[in-house]
């Protein structure tokens, strides 16, 4: 029991379940599912579908943060990626053609990958601080996107393209499968190979890991490439959802929400240990909170305050000091022992076997 209570994902999961409980009590519609034409609908399905872009961005952000970096350019990369994809489809003259859509998506992903390579180059080769290096694209990227679309919102009517965000595979939204695939791939690569441990090593102490023979440059560079590419995929999802490339609104503030999701999931901004499962829960908390604001009918002017209060509560409850204080209160007989975190080795083993 005590190990569950002290697991670092305990509080994020509690926060998520509380949100779901509040929603279900306030509006029983929340947990209802409807099946129409063999497709599942409902508030929770919408949350799973709409969380896909943030999920992709936050996964990339987790890896980058684990290397003690940060990627502020993800929102701008989303805008560029959407702009590239829609401009290609729009100019092709055959928007409904599956081949055209595939070419557009691949081209957009390649452009995002190149932007990720650029970020990684600045950070790992030139040694520029991550926050500065990615700030360049964060500020300039949206301009590039506007340049590509000519300052207009490019719109297309393309069935295969809108399928990416709004289509259904079997009974669940296709976008949900994309985020599950991303979680699985990232999880397997980081946790089933040595890469995860190496990434953490680089984040905990770059110099020591270099001396230990870890090629930190490649690992850091790779993290930004992954982040950029995932942001590109998120941009395609965003554009596909509204069938338009909105260079100004695509991914605004998503870098901050992604960082928030990573932090809510218990990964430290100081780099090192990271938790993919934590990030997934963090994203779901944010997305559920977003729809809670709609469900509870919080007036538009007050919704940022509501959002802020909930986030503050979750972050405060998660802080080690508060957790320790709660631990002490519940077991006053063992003042010190209860407050000590489990040994690092155990934690790491748990992480690897999970």
């Amino acid at each position, binding site marked *: 029991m005590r190990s569950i209570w002290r697991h670092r994902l305990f509080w994020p999961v509690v926060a998520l379940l509380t949100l779901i409980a509040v929603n279900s009590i306030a509006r029983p519609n929340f947990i209802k599912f409807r099946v129409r034409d063999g497709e599942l*609908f*409902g508030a929770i399905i919408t949350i799973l579908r709409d969380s896909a872009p943030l999920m992709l961005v936050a996964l990339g952000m987790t890896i980058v943060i684990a290397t003690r970096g940060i990627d502020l350019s993800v929102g701008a990369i989303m805008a560029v990626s959407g702009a590239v994809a829609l401009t290609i489809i729009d100019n092709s003259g055959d928007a409904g053609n599956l081949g055209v859509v595939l070419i557009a998506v691949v081209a957009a992903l390649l452009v995002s990958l190149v932007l990720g390579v650029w970020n990684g180059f600045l950070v790992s080769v030139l040694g520029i601080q991550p926050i500065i290096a990615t700030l360049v694209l964060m500020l300039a990227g949206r301009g590039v996107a506007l340049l590509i679309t000519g300052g207009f*919102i490019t719109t297309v009517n393309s069935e295969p393209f809108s399928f990416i965000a709004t289509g259904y595979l079997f009974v669940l939204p296709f976008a949900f499968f994309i985020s599950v695939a991303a979680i699985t791939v990232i999880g397997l690569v980081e946790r089933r190979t040595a890469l995860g441990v190496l990434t953490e090593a680089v984040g905990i102490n770059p110099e020591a890991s270099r001396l230990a023979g870890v090629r930190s440059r490649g690992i850091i560079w790779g993290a930004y490439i992954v982040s950029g590419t995932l942001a590109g995929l998120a941009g395609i999802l965003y554009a596909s959802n*509204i069938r*338009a490339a909105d260079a100004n*609104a695509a991914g605004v503030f998503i870098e901050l929400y992604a960082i928030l999701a990573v932090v809510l999931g218990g990964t430290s901004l100081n780099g090192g240990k990271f938790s993919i499962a934590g990030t997934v829960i963090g994203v779901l908390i944010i997305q559920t909170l977003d729809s809670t604001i*709609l469900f509870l*009918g919080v*007036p538009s002017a007050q919704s940022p305050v509501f959002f802020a209060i909930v986030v503050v509560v979750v972050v405060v409850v998660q802080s080690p000091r508060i957790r320790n204080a709660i631990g002490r209160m519940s077991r006053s007989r063992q003042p010190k022992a209860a407050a000590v975190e489990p040994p690092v080795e155990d934690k790491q083993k748990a992480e690897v076997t999970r």
Partner: protein
Amino acid sequence: MKKRFLSTIAIAGAAAMALTACSSDSDAGSSDAADGGGGGDVITVGFAQTGSESGWRSANTESMKTAFSSENGFELVFNAADNDTAAQIAAVRSFINQGVDAIVIAPIVEDGWDDVLQEASDAGIPVILEDRTVSASEDLYAAWIGLDFEQEGVTAGEWAAAEFGDTETNMVVLEGTTGSAPANDRATGFDSAIEGTMITKIDSQTGDFTRDGGKSVMEGFIQNYGVDGIDLVYAHNDDMALGAIEAIEAAGAVPGEDIKIISIDAVHDGMQALVDGKINYIVECNPLLGDLVAAAVTGVVNGEDVEAVQYVEDLAFDQAAAEEALPDRKY
């Protein structure tokens, strides 16, 4: 050694940047001087646009750029603030510092303009407001050219009252950016027009004038009240209405039939949706303000009296009118 090499590159880069900054400065200086020498024929105008958040905005920007072209004797310094109020105020300050002849602003929000407008007035630079208004004192700007947002709301509301006023109608509202003049006035106008009818406003949330905002808010409404619980959507602009259409279609209902949609703006995509029957009524919000603004700027700079408040005529379309008008629309 390596470190020193990198820092040398950095310094060289900084120096190069400083040099380009200098040269662009001197360019500006020389062109100013040339203007002065030529008798000031060219009017330098700083235009602080909100951003390019919607199709309407793009059409408005185009119209302004055409009206303030160099052929018409203007030099336009254009700034789009990406819907960031602080950035827009900073842009206006930089116009003041550059010493432009006139400043045109399309304010993102109504409040917070007093100081910077006072600075412009101290510097003797006339300010003309375009599209949206500000809450600052009227002495601080020379003229306002725009649209009667409240009247747009009234026109939309009157149509809704005439069509649905006699039956129980549940309406949801997709608001514009919280605190912006069009969002406030369109809501006020509409509400006053439907007063006393059987239309009930069951919910109202902001969609920030974007498609994505309109879509996700509408999805929330549909989950909350069900497709059958909503009869009418009033969107404060076309982009949000287009987002709502996507949400309604995704929920398996037919926009324009199961759920009626009233919108404001009449941009091309919106008009197309109206022709296709997915939107039921659009009140125009004419973005082609450029020529009127240019005329006002010329007047103010030449010291003529300019009418302080100028409204641009707005039309309203139902499906038949849209079919007729669509081929000739400029935007």
